[in-house]
């Protein structure tokens, strides 16, 4: 069902390509893809570029609609899409954020070396599989009352730390301190809370995972030193989001936004781009509900970090503190935030939508934790479970060309259906084992659906971001074992 792009693409420089505003009626700005010529060919063979052009039709868009190098087809915005909207006359759209609000990734350091992990990898992964619940069809380990779920929605990871799931240092190394203050749980439906209450502290299915990795190569030693990363160090990556609560918030507000289109006289080229003016009652209500879902996601990753620490400590007969299990950083992939950016030489507040894109703020930015402010924000980029992942660092160039944004992962090449046809889960498990990666999965088909071949090579994607200057390589990671949802 793929469509091949036949519209114009003008080369701006080696890594930027423009779809001019004149491409189709309704575009209010240009659209710009950050990629190389090979990446562009992949993007051409999908709906992603049309979706990018569609996102440039939204009222109040400031500067171009952008796509990061891992661009691929989504719903509404393409995955890898970034759209910055003016507050005074711009809109907010769930289609620019996605169903899994604040899906994101964090990296936990350890003081374990490769030699410590290798002999234990199977039992360690088995333990993580048992102790980090997938939450599929069953209740998670954190039982919340209705009042407590409101606390989670309004306080995010801060609630989790107050409840014993982590420490203050974790919050300092989480975007926004793990809490969007705008959150108002009154804007979240009872249905969303019903879905979320049993799912806190669970991973979910799809592409979510807990992965044990090793630092395979240090590329920028000075920055790696500040990030406290070194060669052969074992680290743990956690990838999950806001679970059913966030999905329900998105579902609920798509209905609200579709109804709001006529009220505000807005026309959009795709129903998934239904939106409302940011400052309207509908827009503000969605923004504060989305903030609640973002907070839920941060609390979720914080609780999972706690289970990971406990499981690892038991595996090594030690404590998380003795094992040096500190958080490097936690980044969001699917979110809208009010940020200050320079537009035509003037600082303006914008509602920056990132859908499958990561914030990548530069050295000196006040939103970068004090410990990293001298070098820039850590950017954690997961790859597939057979190849690499990366830690990058944010740059000034990203502030100038991509509203402080960069890629979020490898980007899919195959649909789940194609991936399932290509290999059986047992074949994927076997080929991963041959590559030195021990994998377990809570769902029947996840290993096949998430096979390395289903994704672009993250090494290529990260090369582009590095050469384009929107984030720079710090270390390359290699997987040792993975628990898939």
């Amino acid at each position, binding site marked *: *069902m*793929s469509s091949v792009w036949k519209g114009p693409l003008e080369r701006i420089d080696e890594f930027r390509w423009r779809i001019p505003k004149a491409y189709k009626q309704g575009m209010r700005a240009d659209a710009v893809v950050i990629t190389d010529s090979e990446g562009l060919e992949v993007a051409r063979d999908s*709906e992603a570029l049309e979706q990018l052009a569609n996102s440039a039709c939204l009222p109040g868009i400031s500067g171009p609609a952008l796509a990061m190098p891992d661009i*691929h*087809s*989504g*719903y*509404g915005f393409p995955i890898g899409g970034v759209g910055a909207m003016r507050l005074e006359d711009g809109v907010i759209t769930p289609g620019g954020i*996605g*169903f*899994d609000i604040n899906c994101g990734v964090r990296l936990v350091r350890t003081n374990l070396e490769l030699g410590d992990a290798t002999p234990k990898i199977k039992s360690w992964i088995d333990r993580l599989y048992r102790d980090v619940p*997938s939450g*599929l*069809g*069953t209740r998670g380990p954190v039982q919340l009352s209705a009042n407590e779920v409101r606390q989670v929605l309004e306080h995010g990871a801060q609630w989790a730390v107050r409840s014993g799931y982590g420490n203050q240092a974790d919050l300092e190394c989480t975007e926004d301190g793990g809490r969007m203050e705008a959150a108002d749980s009154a804007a979240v439906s009872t*249905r969303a809370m*019903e*879905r979320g209450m*049993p*799912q806190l502290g669970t991973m*979910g*299915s*799809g592409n979510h995972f807990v992965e044990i990795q090793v630092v395979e190569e240090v590329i920028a030693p000075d920055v790696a030193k500040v990030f406290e990363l070194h060669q052969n160090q074992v680290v743990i990556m956690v990838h999950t989001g806001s679970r*059913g609560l966030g*999905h*329900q918030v*998105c*579902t609920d507000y*798509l*209905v609200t936004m*579709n*109804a709001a289109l006529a009220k505000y006289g807005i026309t959009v080229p*795709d*129903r*998934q781009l*239904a939106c409302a003016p940011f400052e309207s009652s509908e827009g503000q209500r969605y923004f504060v509900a989305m903030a609640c879902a973002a907070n839920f996601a941060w609390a979720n990753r914080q609780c999972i970090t706690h289970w990971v620490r406990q499981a690892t400590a038991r595996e090594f007969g030690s404590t998380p503190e003795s094992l040096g299990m500190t958080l490097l950083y936690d980044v969001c992939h699917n979110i809208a935030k009010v940020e200050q950016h320079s537009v035509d030489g003037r600082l303006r507040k914008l509602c920056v939508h990132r859908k499958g894109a990561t914030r990548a703020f530069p050295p000196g930015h006040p939103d970068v934790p004090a410990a990293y402010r001298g070098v820039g924000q850590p950017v954690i980029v997961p790859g597939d479970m057979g190849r690499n992942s990366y830690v990058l660092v944010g740059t000034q160039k990203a502030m100038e060309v991509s509203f402080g944004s960069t890629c979020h992962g490898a980007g*899919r090449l*195959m*649909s*789940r*259906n*194609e991936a399932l046809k290509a290999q059986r*889960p047992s074949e994927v498990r076997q080929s991963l084992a041959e590559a030195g990666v021990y994998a*377990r*999965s*809570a*769902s*029947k*088909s*996840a*290993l096949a*659906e998430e096979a390395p071949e289903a994704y672009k090579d993250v090494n290529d994607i990260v090369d582009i971001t590095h050469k384009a200057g929107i984030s720079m390589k710090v270390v390359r990671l290699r997987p040792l074992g993975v628990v898939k949802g």
Partner: protein
Amino acid sequence: MADVKTIIEPFDEAGDAAFRVTASSLPEVFTGCGLALSNLILPWAELGGEWEHRLGMPATRRIELAAPDLESLLVDFANEIIFLFDCEAFVPCGFEFRELGRTEPAEGAGAACLDAEVAGIVLTENALLLAADQCGILGLVPKAASYHMIEVAELADGKWTARLVLDA
């Protein structure tokens, strides 16, 4: 399991799960979509006979919806099935529609509505624990149904068709 004379064709879209369903009536199309989604969550077609009795307790649920159009109604219907699984581990096996179709605008807020009795099972904790140890009987639990490429239409030959894309 319901005997559905329906064509269900999965297709590749946006890296997620998608299918087209064609049948002789609108209720059969909605039933086909419901069963395709249910089979995605729990691939019962691979489980063999009597799976309902082995894995869960029989149960029924009622779904009542109103929406601005048939496409929105299908999205809402699919989202209701996902919600029932997420909250109650309820997996549908059959649908009986008391009401399904377009309504006169004067009748209420929605221009399309649905009232269905859904037969299914609630998966037991034991079935899920066993499933986890064996790397899962569960398939893919979608996040939500999307409006992407959504279509519900009556064909020239009187059959009905629907296209549904799920964000996984």
